[in-house]
């Protein structure tokens, strides 16, 4: 199990590097987050979804194996940004159980920049990443 967790951690890091194309771009920048380090939070119970400008926000609870609940908050792009990726304001509702992939805060608070969510029906909704992939140092 320990080895599996290690593999998951490595894969999460590599997954971020390979699949997300590097640092995730946000309207307000990504300096708060571990931009190469995607974590996967399964069985996340949505407590609120805020379809808001300039950032949509997803609040959700995750229970660990001892039954302790962590209250998470993840930021997503603006409605205009993520609508093009298939989201709408009713994509997730309070009580939905989903999987959240996110870049956690460097200070290890329970907040992060969402990379993608996977709905109960299997639909994956990607968050808006940086679009300027050619020049990471600039943005």
């Amino acid at each position: 199990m320990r080895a599996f967790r290690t593999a998951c951690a490595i894969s999460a890091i590599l997954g971020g590097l390979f699949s997300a194309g590097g640092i995730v771009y946000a309207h307000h920048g990504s300096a708060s987050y571990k931009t190469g380090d995607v974590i996967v939070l399964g069985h996340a119970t949505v407590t609120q979804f805020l379809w808001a400008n300039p950032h949509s926000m997803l609040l959700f609870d995750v229970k660990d194996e001892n039954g302790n609940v962590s209250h998470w908050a993840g930021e997503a792009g603006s409605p205009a940004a993520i609508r093009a990726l298939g989201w709408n304001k009713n994509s997730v509702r309070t009580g939905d159980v989903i999987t959240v992939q996110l870049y956690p805060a460097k200070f290890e608070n329970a907040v992060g920049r969402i990379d993608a969510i996977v709905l109960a029906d299997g639909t994956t909704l990607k968050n808006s990443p940086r679009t300027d992939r050619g020049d990471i140092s600039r943005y």
Partner: protein
Amino acid sequence: MHKRLMFGFANLAVALLVSSCAFAQSQDSPKPNYGGPEDLYEKLGDTGAGGAAPKRDLTGFWAGRVAQRLNEIPPLTPWGQEQFRLHKSNEKYPVADSNDPIKGCDPLGFPRNILFMTRGIVFTQMPGKTIEMSEYNRVWREIWTDGRELPKNVGGDTPGAPDPRWYGYSVGRWVDDYTFVVNTVGTDERTWLDNAGHPHSGDLRVEERYRRVSHNSLEVTVTIDDPKTYTKPFVITNAKFTWIPEQDFEEELCVPSEQAEYLKLIANPAGNSTPNK
């Protein structure tokens, strides 16, 4: 070719491992799908020329990158360096510690608004002026085409001297049937040039050179000339825009109340070294 193949296998292996981990934590979780367009500009893809460019006409709705690719910034003057030192950008600081003006939903200002948040722009032409609108915050600029000169004493001490503006003062002219050149002065020093926090002075002069390459394609070259801040003029970007077929304009705003909620729920905790509970 061999390297590409190896990279492809590595990518596939990692994707499978990531998905298996997610699956282990949530039996309902399928393999993540990272494909698909990232914004309207990419979603539109190559729409083709769409026919010849109409003469002296930029009218319409255009999609661009969220953030334009910027060229190398030349060395700053001592004054420019001092201003730059004071700017704590979101690129280097957590939002909680940044002093980027847009953190509080202040206007992006010009020329930052043609370098960033450029998902959508609109031109409409009328006698004596062209209006350029930005999807973001639904901002418009007046570009006078009636032959008037730019104001020379913006921010001056004389009575009636025009004030510096968030979006400056602009005049435009067609230099040929497909190239529209806009010159702007009188911008507000409180605005930043870019997301990195590069400054500009009230002496800033900007030239935008819009070239309609075809019906569906618009290119713009933006030149910065600010001798108080930079040691030489420079082209900051060469950007491209694509005609939006349905000509619809998203509503994208920085809403102060929603931004305050974002700072409270996300940005401030993310920048706080004391873990929350």
